[in-house]
């Protein structure tokens, strides 16, 4: 192995690592606020990437219909929970965010997609299509179980993941898609060829994480989310609505997923079931950060990306084995440092 190969491997590792980092951040965020291990995070990435590629091809992604269906289902569930006596405010809010909004997105995508409006509009439409999935899924699958144990929530998450994978096959078909890059250029840098899109991936990932940091440090919503993460009961006592903060966390997660998907769509080929493996590698990184430490999770993500590309070079047959074996020493180390793991307090 010479220097240019090592450089190429590091470069590939950093690009993949940036995506794992976004996934890991979303996993940590959702787990801290709702105690849900968000297995379907990878599906958000895949749905966004495949939807973006389909928009580029001038067709309406199948997820548009999913959005309308989930919105209607969430509204229906709200009505049932209100025992047939929904307040006026609830009705108005429901009709607006659950019925009118998805319908508007559907019509918009349906009209705009055949015009092939260019990458900027495609990206925006993709965000509109994928970001609202999070809150709807939370209200449908997780809010009714909000007080259950971590294990029950994990099982629900696996269920949602399986459902989304099967739906993905229906929406996108079994073959892979790779979108065209927004910026097609590439240039030589220190003996390796760097594509503009790769720079974009890493830069956009870092910017997204910076924005997230600002959100948590500087805004009321962000601080409320942190408060819930630190102590659910305490947060509830001081009047922070737990359900709403769960919805916000899921919205952020699916938004981050959508951004990751749009970013990697031109870098790699994705399939309806690619999301799971991406999510799993993000999870390895999130575990390294103890599902609580954002900077550590991000650093570990880049580590996972780089280990993966070097493992692929040295021993491609055992690449996945090497990547997932990383979990074992990490867990050992963590258990040595914090020998007693406290069970989450029951709210």
């Amino acid at each position, binding site marked *: 192995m010479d220097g240019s190969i090592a450089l190429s491997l590091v470069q590939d590792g950093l690009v993949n690592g940036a995506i794992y980092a976004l996934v890991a951040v979303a996993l940590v965020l959702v787990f801290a606020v709702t105690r849900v291990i968000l297995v379907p995070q990878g599906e958000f990435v895949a749905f966004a990437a495949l939807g973006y590629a389909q928009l580029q091809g001038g067709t309406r992604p199948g997820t548009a219909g999913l959005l309308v269906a989930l919105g209607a289902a969430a509204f229906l569930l709200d009505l049932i929970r209100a025992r047939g006596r929904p307040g006026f405010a609830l009705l108005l809010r429901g009709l607006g965010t659950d019925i009118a909004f998805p319908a508007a997105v559907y019509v918009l995508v349906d009209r705009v997609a055949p015009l092939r409006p260019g990458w900027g509009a495609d990206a925006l439409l993709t965000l509109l299509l994928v970001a609202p999935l999070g809150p709807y899924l939370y209200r449908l699958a997780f809010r009714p179980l909000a007080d259950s144990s971590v294990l029950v929530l994990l099982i629900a998450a696996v269920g949602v993941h399986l459902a989304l994978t*099967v739906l993905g096959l229906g929406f996108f078909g079994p073959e*892979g898609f790779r979108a065209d890059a927004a910026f097609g250029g590439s240039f030589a840098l220190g003996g390796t060829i760097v594509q503009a899109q790769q720079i974009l991936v890493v830069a956009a990932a870092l910017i997204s994480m910076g924005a997230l940091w600002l959100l948590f440090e500087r805004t009321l919503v962000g601080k409320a989310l942190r408060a819930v993460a630190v102590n659910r009961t305490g947060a509830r006592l001081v009047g922070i609505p737990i359900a709403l903060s769960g919805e916000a966390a899921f919205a952020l997660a699916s938004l981050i997923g959508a951004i990751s998907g749009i970013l990697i769509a031109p870098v790699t*080929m994705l*399939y309806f079931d690619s999301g799971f493996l991406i999510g799993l590698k993000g999870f390895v990184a999130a575990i390294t950060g103890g599902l609580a430490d954002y900077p550590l999770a991000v650093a570990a993500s880049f580590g996972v990306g780089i280990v993966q590309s070097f493992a*692929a070079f040295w021993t*491609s047959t055992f690449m*996945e084995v090497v990547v997932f074996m990383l979990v074992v020493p990490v867990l050992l180390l963590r258990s040595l440092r914090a020998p007693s793991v406290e069970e989450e307090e029951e709210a």
Partner: protein
Amino acid sequence: MTHPYARIATLAFALSLGATGTCLADITVGITVSATGPGAALGGPEMKTVAILPAEIAGQKVKYVALDDASDATKSATNFRKFVAEDKADLVIGSTLTFTTLPLVDIAAESKTPLMATTAGAVLVEPVDEKRRWVFKIVPNDRIGAVALAKYMAKQGIKTVGFLAFNDAYGEAWTKEVNKAFPDNGMSLVASETYARTDTSAIGQVLKLIAAKPDAVFIAASGTPAAVPARELREKGFAGPMFQTHGVASPLFIQAGGKDVEGTVISAEPFVVASQLPDDNPFKKVALDYAARYKEANNAPATIFGAHLVDAMRIIAAAAPEALKKGEPGSEAFRTALRDAIEQVKGLYLNNGLLTMSPTDHCGYDDRSAMVMKVEDGAFKLIQ
């Protein structure tokens, strides 16, 4: 789980029965394919082919029962048992992947039901023993394609080859054949790597191949994932010729690979280049007939995977008249006679090649079955 396709298949069958009413002597065909899960790219078109399979062979109505096994070996076995116990199937076609088909071999022998395997694994029919007597394979052995390509490559003056394969049964089967066929033709493998169907990048493997400086690269993968390393090889500056297997013989591969897969040479079944064959070539009519009917029924281009089912039924059509003399469909006598008759099928032109079965060869394609073709201007062009 009732799959939507299964409902379509049942409907089609119900319609075909509508005219005459159920008759006890129908030939019942159980079909299990992987319409969902990792095998969906192959099994989807197979399921969509069920509706255009012949409604009548040798003067007998045919009843099809098609189920999805979701690329799950337990599910395909369950499907087979259901065909035997509930549907009294006279034969079973399936499954899509080698590992979902392996458990069917035992059940075929145990229930004395002929199995027409629609996947490539040679292990399914070799050697023909007490169990494998009941199994016939529609897809030609990988050996035929590997040998055809090896000969072509050697003729081009290629001496060293970098090899990249899927890390699954498909890649493994090809690794075995390539490791034999290439040295036989005076070529050496200078690097041998694997990657996964769902890998987001194969940069590491690609760099290792390039570092070994091979004359050519051979990729044993299928469908759109096969385009991933091809694109990366070109991106990283590999300029030599690239070779692939019949697993990429679909327009979607070319679409996914774009200009990076131009010039790629593959070996595949006659079906893929049927329209370029001379009019008097017997493969041409067979393949174009299926392609046209599939397109009419599904408004999508046909692929070789669905053609496996059509080929299976052509073999049955050739064998059934003999078997019907010895027993009534639904009886063990008929199934046994059908098995014996399939072994006698000779010189049948199919989408997959020219087939001659024998008691010792249950996948009897000869070398004429592999055609070498090249990607040119976004389409497969026959070169020999």
